[in-house]
């Protein structure tokens, strides 16, 4: 490792706040770009199950899709 100890790594000779802020914001943004579609998927599954129950009740038939 280039730094001698964890304090030096944290301080980065004065540039620590800049470097760690940049990496922190990046980590948060990337996690959000995974969390948003994963959460949407869960909500969508619930909504679609309710949708199919309603369809069943009204006896509408589904298509095969294009392929």
């Amino acid at each position, binding site marked *: *490792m*280039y*730094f001698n100890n964890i304090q030096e*790594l944290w301080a*980065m*000779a*004065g*540039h*620590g706040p*800049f*470097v760690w*802020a*940049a*990496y922190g*914001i*990046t980590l948060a*943004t*990337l996690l*959000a*770009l*995974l969390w*948003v*579609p*994963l959460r*949407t*998927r869960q909500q*969508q*599954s619930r909504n*679609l*199950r309710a*949708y*199919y129950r309603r369809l069943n009740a009204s006896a509408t038939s*589904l*298509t*095969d*899709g*294009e*392929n």
Partner: protein
Amino acid sequence: MWGWFHKWSSPRWFYQLSGRLLPWLAVLTALTLVAGVAWGLLFVPPDYKQGNSFRIIYIHVPAAAVAMAGYMVMAVAGAISLIWRIKLADMVMKCCAPIGAALTFLALVTGAIWGKPTWGTWWVWDARITSVLVLFFLYVGVLALYEAFDNKEAAGRACAILALVGAVNIPVIYWSVEWWYSLHQPASISFTGESSIHPSMLRPLILTIIGFYSFFAVSLLLFVRNEILNRERNTRWVRELILADSKV
């Protein structure tokens, strides 16, 4: 070739293929990003002029590169959906917008944070930075335009045209540091000649660039798969998939 094209454009086939690809892409993303970031933060010596602030390069450059590449994906998908009316292309175009906007935001913010200790300022209205800000507004514009239409087919066409017209900004961003006098340095990595960045600094950067591209693919596939399920809800395969899901 047309059979291949037709197969690729099938939402169902794409959903199944992407499901098989996702775990591999996720592993590739995690490995390259963790290794590249750890290497760049902990092991590379500081820059002789910029000191440790240069370590921001390992997220700033990949975010900016993928933000631009993502725009090209969006514009090409828009063109395919306009010309051949392929539903899947429209979904890909729509799903590029939030990811691209977020990555462009990251490029701007990490650039500003890097600029403060290096240039002495968070922001300058120079060609590179302003054209990347325009890129951000283009992504946000596509997002907003899509939501502005009730008719999603019309929304898709309008967004595809906006994405295509906005593509003129990509070469402007790329060559802005050559065409205009700029605080921003020109590219350090060259595919044709010798790179002006030291190999010890370049190697982790290559890892994080691969990691960001792979991350873009993972996030895009997750968004597109949701879009497929939503738009193909009236097909049997989606119903079977959703009902099978609920039993687990």
